[in-house]
């Protein structure tokens, strides 16, 4: 398991960082995002969508309310958010059905217990606008 760290200093840098990461995606990646309120998970998701060629990343917004947003880019993007769910509910939801049919982005992934292959990203808030990323893939 490869673990690395990265620091960004603005939302713009976070988007750029995620975009670059997504350029190498092959369409079946699972990105599990963890980190507290306001850490920048949705911003990171916008960057991934940009890297996957989504034209208008303004449509990438928090799925806290809807649980799942789907965007059509180079690959289908399944943007989940488990903020409001408890563990039993995430098990009932069936998000795994989407594995293999597109890129899966998941916010509040601490609510699931998925052992399979995935890119795990932990975001922490640093000083000022700084965000510290720990990436495990």
């Amino acid at each position, binding site marked *: 398991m490869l673990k690395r760290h990265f620091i960004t200093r603005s939302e713009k840098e976070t988007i750029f960082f995620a975009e670059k990461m997504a350029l190498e995606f092959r369409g079946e990646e699972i990105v599990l995002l963890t980190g507290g*309120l*306001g850490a920048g998970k*949705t*911003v990171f998701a916008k960057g991934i969508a940009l890297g996957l060629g989504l034209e208008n990343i*303004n449509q990438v*917004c*928090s799925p*806290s*309310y*809807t*649980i*799942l*947003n*789907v965007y059509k880019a180079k690959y289908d993007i399944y943007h989940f958010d488990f*903020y*409001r*769910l*408890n563990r039993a*509910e995430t098990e*009932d*939801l069936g998000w795994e059905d989407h594995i293999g049919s597109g890129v899966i982005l998941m916010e509040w992934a601490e609510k699931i217990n998925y052992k399979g292959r995935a890119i795990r990203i932990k975001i922490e*808030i640093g000083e000022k606008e700084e965000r510290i990323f720990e990436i495990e893939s």
Partner: protein
Amino acid sequence: MNILGIETSCDETAASVITDRKRVLSNIVLSQDEIHSPYGGIVPELASRNHVISINFILEESLERAGIKIKDIDLISVTQGPGLIGSLLVGLSFAKGLAYTLEKPLIPVDHLEAHIHSAFIENEDIPFPALVLLVSGGHTSLYLMRKKLDCKVLGKTRDDAAGEALDKIAKFLDIGYPGGPLIEKLSLGGNTQEFDFALPKMTDQSLDFSFSGFKTAALRHIKKNNLNKKSSRLKDFLASFEHSVVRALISRLKKAASKHFPESLILCGGVARNKRLREYFTELAEEKGLHSFIPSHEFCTDNAAMVAALALEKYNKGDKGELSLDLNAYARSPH
């Protein structure tokens, strides 16, 4: 003619009967707030299960209050989306079953369009064009309305909805759920200038909204000042936070007004019950010399009268509904 409306897009189970003269005979809403409040938010699976349990009772209650029998219903309408897919399916399947059994037309409506239309339940003649600000737990959008049923999106949120930002901060501070009304109550009399929240800058000319910056700023204030639900400064903090969220909403509306020259301003959606928002909204309308309309509380929150009213409007414009059973619930709005 009696129109039945059914609404189950989120956690409210609602049914309403209105007449073709737009008289609201009944408007029954069962909120699951109490069921969900220990969780600090809506629990989707719980929500759909509870809709199944309560929908029959809610229908019967709405018929009884209206003083009619089920056979007196002439038209059935139901929310098709957007919302939680499981919850939507409960209402939709129920409505389809009713329409099929009673052999009455079924008109599906969009939840957001129904909220917009809620302003017309109490006001038949709203001067057009109108700018509509729709604010709820899950949605924050701005529309230009040239005539009834004709809405164009001018802007919407790029991250969190306004109500969502309020809910999330309330949950973080362990104040309770739903966050909006609790923040309103606890911030009463607080100083709105005590904590600074910068308005989000949009680099383009768009009328979109953004609330994630406020959320981050709020967390920074909480951390820096060690705020919790027992702090003496909580009142000022919540007042400043609520003031900033409302100011951001109104500033977009103001910008849209100087661009599109409307005759009227409409405020709707669950957050339209917020006192501060109503106040700033009315001030803006007075300042610009425009007509302003805000539905009564019972039509702001998710309800089925707005669903029936919109279906009636569509019916009068020639939409005869459908009896085919291939309607599908959808989670995201096409708007």
